[in-house]
């Protein structure tokens, strides 16, 4: 699977098509459909050979291309020409728009970007919380914690819509519990905290207790890499 990252550079079918148009040095107005279709399919074959999962979008485009190619190979009549033109537009239209935005994106990136090319005074805290600026030990911010929490909830209560409910569980109790666990062990994992099959309100209480402990700097949280289980340690 180490190949994946090297080969899978195309984000989606439009990205791949655009690449093929560029490599073949052709105009959008005059795309050699047969050639492009063959190259497109070759690429998909390569992905298959390397056991790379091919996203559905790639397949949809593949069938559109093949349909168009077969139409073009057949002897043409007036009616077919119209249909072919429509099909071409179905492919070229989005491609044209896509190129337009790609260029606009490049223009945007070429501007004097703040904190890259030009700098303002003082720090850039803005509204986003959790940059760890206030001397807290959090390496993961509130947003990520929230998402991690949602994951736990989704696992235990697949069909529940989460809302803040007045709870029967005390956050204070949970704070004491977590403190004890973290002090007893060197590292505990976020998922372990929620391993018991408690009620929603209990899970919320645990979560809020955790937030509080992080906020006051009692617990340090780490994440080896995005998406990994979050690790909790007593902060020394």
């Amino acid at each position, binding site marked *: 699977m180490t190949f994946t990252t090297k080969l899978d550079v195309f984000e989606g*079918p439009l990205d791949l098509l655009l690449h093929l148009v560029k490599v073949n040095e052709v105009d*959008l107005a005059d795309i050699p459909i047969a050639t492009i279709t063959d190259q497109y399919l070759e690429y998909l074959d390569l992905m298959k050979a390397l056991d790379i999962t091919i996203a559905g979008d790639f397949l949809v485009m593949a069938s559109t291309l093949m349909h168009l190619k077969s139409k073009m190979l057949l002897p043409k009549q007036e009616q077919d020409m119209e249909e072919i033109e429509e099909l071409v537009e179905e492919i070229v239209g989005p491609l044209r728009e896509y190129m337009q*935005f790609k260029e606009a*994106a490049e223009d*945007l*990136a070429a501007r004097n970007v*703040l904190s890259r090319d030009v700098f303002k005074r003082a720090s850039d805290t803005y509204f986003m919380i959790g940059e760890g600026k206030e001397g807290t030990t959090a390496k993961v911010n509130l947003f990520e914690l929230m998402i991690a929490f949602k994951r736990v909830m989704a696992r235990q209560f697949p069909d529940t819509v989460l809302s803040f409910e007045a709870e029967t569980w005390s956050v204070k109790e949970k704070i004491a519990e977590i403190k004890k666990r973290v002090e007893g062990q060197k590292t505990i994992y976020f998922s372990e905290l929620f391993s018991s099959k408690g009620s929603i309100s209990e899970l919320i209480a645990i979560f809020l207790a955790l937030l509080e402990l992080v906020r006051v700097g009692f617990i340090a949280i780490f994440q080896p890499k995005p998406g990994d289980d979050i690790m909790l340690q007593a902060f020394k």
Partner: protein
Amino acid sequence: MNNSLKLIVESLLFAAVDPLTPRQIHGLLPERDLKEIKEVLAALKDEYEGMKRSFTLVEVAEGYQFRTLPSYKPYIANLLGATPTRLSRPALETLTIIAYKQPILRQEIERLRGVDVGGIIRMLLKKGLIRVVGRKPLPGKPIIYGTTKRFLEVFDLKDLSSLPTLKEIEELGNGEEE
């Protein structure tokens, strides 16, 4: 106190983290005319441009902000150390589509890019570059997205109308065959 309006406004701009609009400054100095404040801002901008220092007053995000000139970038980058948050190409393209087509639904962005953009939208929301503008009166009340003031600030844009017009893709001709 005998400070001139010009220097009072300057002190506010100097201390502020975000760009200040004439209206915001007026809110802080209600006894002064909005018109007067606008004049002072324009005068300050001219003055700083003429002074040829390492920083200047820039009109950005519907307001004014002191910023260093681009040529000092290498020194300051060394000072601040941390590499600036860089947007990936897919993220930048998504942001561009939102900027030009706003207010826009997630589905429309996905149609234009041909791929799922959920994760990117979340990241852009988190970075404060885009925002929820409202909801569309459609089944499921889907969220509509737009860019923020922060977007204007980061990309050195005075307002949305100063986004360059989209270029026509030239090789296309008129779309007529042969």
